[in-house]
């Protein structure tokens, strides 16, 4: 049972930071930035490259994440904000195109094989029959820490209040003297940093390849939509729901039902779990399962 919980948490951690970034950007910019999943890969790959050039691992992570945030701001400044002038659909398609270009850059830069941080080998610890390694715990820590910091910023600071005001009603926020342009630039930076940290968390406990971003695309969108696009912390709950669904799909032994010792669905069917949830949500709760209010006009 504990192993199940750990598996769920590990999967939720893969998705949570990128999903929250997607939702946060949507809340201010009003377009889902597909390229965010590539920022996750970029953050991790840059950090790995920094580490290879001799930088200590945590500093390398800092540099990789910071650089990715910067790239995110630049891309937004020169590409996405211009596309947004002709509509959010244009910007979304544009971000898809940009993420494909980023993918091609990765292919040239690091090749098609998966890479990982050079970390010391960690033996699994056994806790109540469940196994967990030190680096998996660090990965949890990174995600939990990032979520906590963002929550404090978002709910406890003046800056966070201004962001929320801008998200709720941009015109009104502007009229009350909030610099909405600055808020948007800030949320773009924060989302880039969060997504990059999400990638780093994945790389800390496993591997990252140029395919990782595209593999994240569907579950991350499903998590963000489940939580109500534009509701950042709803996305975290969405990520948990997706993780539970995927883990149930792949970790349930159907053997006893079929009179065999072991019978599992192939692990590749895990994505089917998130697909199914996404379709169901879009059909019955298109504004997300955690949104109860009626749409404000």
């Amino acid at each position: 049972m504990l192993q199940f919980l750990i598996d769920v948490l590990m999967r939720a951690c893969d998705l949570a930071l990128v999903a929250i970034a997607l939702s946060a950007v949507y809340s201010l910019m009003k377009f889902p930035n597909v390229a965010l999943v590539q920022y996750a890969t970029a953050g991790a790959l840059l950090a790995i490259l920094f580490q290879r050039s001799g930088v200590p691992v945590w500093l390398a992570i800092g540099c990789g994440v910071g650089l990715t945030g910067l790239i995110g701001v630049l891309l937004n400044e020169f590409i996405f904000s211009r596309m947004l002038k002709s509509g959010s659909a244009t910007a979304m398609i544009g971000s898809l195109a940009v993420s494909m270009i980023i993918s091609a850059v990765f292919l040239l830069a690091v090749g098609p094989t998966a890479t990982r941080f050079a970390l010391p080998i960690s033996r699994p610890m056994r806790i109540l029959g469940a196994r967990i390694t030190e680096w998996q715990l660090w990965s949890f820590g990174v995600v939990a820490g990032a979520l906590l910091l963002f929550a404090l910023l978002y709910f406890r600071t003046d800056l966070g209040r201004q962001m929320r005001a801008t998200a709720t009603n941009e015109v009104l926020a502007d009229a009350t003297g909030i610099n909405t342009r600055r808020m948007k630039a800030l949320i773009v930076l924060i989302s880039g940093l969060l997504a990059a940290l999400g990638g780093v968390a994945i790389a800390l406990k496993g591997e990252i390849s140029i395919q990782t971003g595209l593999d994240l695309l569907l579950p991350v969108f499903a998590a963000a939509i489940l939580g109500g696009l534009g509701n950042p912390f709803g996305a975290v709950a969405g990520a948990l729901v997706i993780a539970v669904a995927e883990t149930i799909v792949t970790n349930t032994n159907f053997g006893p039902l079929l009179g065999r010792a072991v019978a599992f669905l192939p692990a590749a069917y895990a994505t089917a779990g998130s697909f199914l949830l996404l379709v169901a949500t879009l059909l019955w709760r298109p504004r997300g399962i955690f949104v109860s209010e009626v749409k404000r006009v």
Partner: protein
Amino acid sequence: MKKLLLAGLVLAGLSVSAHAEGVVIGTILPLSGASATVGEDQRRGIELALDQINASGGVLGKPLTIVTEDSAGRTATALDAAKKLVTVDKVPVVLGEFSSGVTIPVAEYLVQQGRSHINIGSSGLKIRTIGAGQFSVLGLDDVASDFAAQDVYASGARKVAIIVPNNGYGQGMASAFEKKFTALGGTVTSALLYTEGQTSYRRELQQLEAGSPDAYIYSAYGKESATINREGFELGLNDKPWYGLYLTMCISDSEPHYVEGQIGMDLNYIGPNGKGYQDAYKKKFGTDFTSTFNGFAYDGVMLVAAAINKAQSTDPAKINAAIVELGKDYDGVTGPIVLDADGQRSAQPYLHLKVVDGKAVVAP
């Protein structure tokens, strides 16, 4: 107008004869991607063969040229490479690749185009039925899986779980192993085909563990295998024996700490006449063999060169006939190569190996 045409013809003639000096053959190898380590080792075998051939007079009296293409371990890339070799380099013979899932479509394409294909690294059973013009210098999986099943049974394991790649190689190997192992009296708790190119196989490994097997039987390409070995270790699955099918491929990219003590089988890669070759490899590259596959690449190239010299022609049909003739009794560095009626190596000795200090060594 006539002059213009003539000039055009001369130009065309020039461009075709870009490699005018002698015979050109092609190879397709996984120089990048999951099997890059084995691909590089195959390339080394080919390089040694090329050096040897050209030092002793070349082919048809001229130096031999080998055009090497990277498949990146992907079927689509490999097929593009095969098309390029056929249409641009106009080679009569192509050697390669490594993964059966890539080799089979490439060989089918080459045979359709009337060129010869030499399999130097794949063991999928479907290779047998590709047709005339396709040859293998290593034994295929029917023999390998029988050997492995007996070997595992002899090691005392009765309940095993299998994980292999979801492609022609993995499917053939898993079903043949299961058949033989069950016939011996053992049980297979689960046989799982993994999707290639993932960055995590945790879920698959946990599913295998659920059957509480006595031993894990696995086969995976270099870098995927590294992931499987690391995650198996992190899940604590290495408290049970791990048996690698083609062990040197399975451990080529893995952290030695994760694979220490694993047992497995592999091709017997060095024959009675292989000593000189082994020394030449060590001298040129400064290390021991990094996989068992370089010798088969070497033998493949040497066999083709001998066949072209015998045929005194670069016509694929004549080369095929010469290979059939030579294949009745060819002495390679990987041992005697005798090709059966389908052009496949008929007898292939295997080794029982164990990982000691990070290296696969022959175990009794």
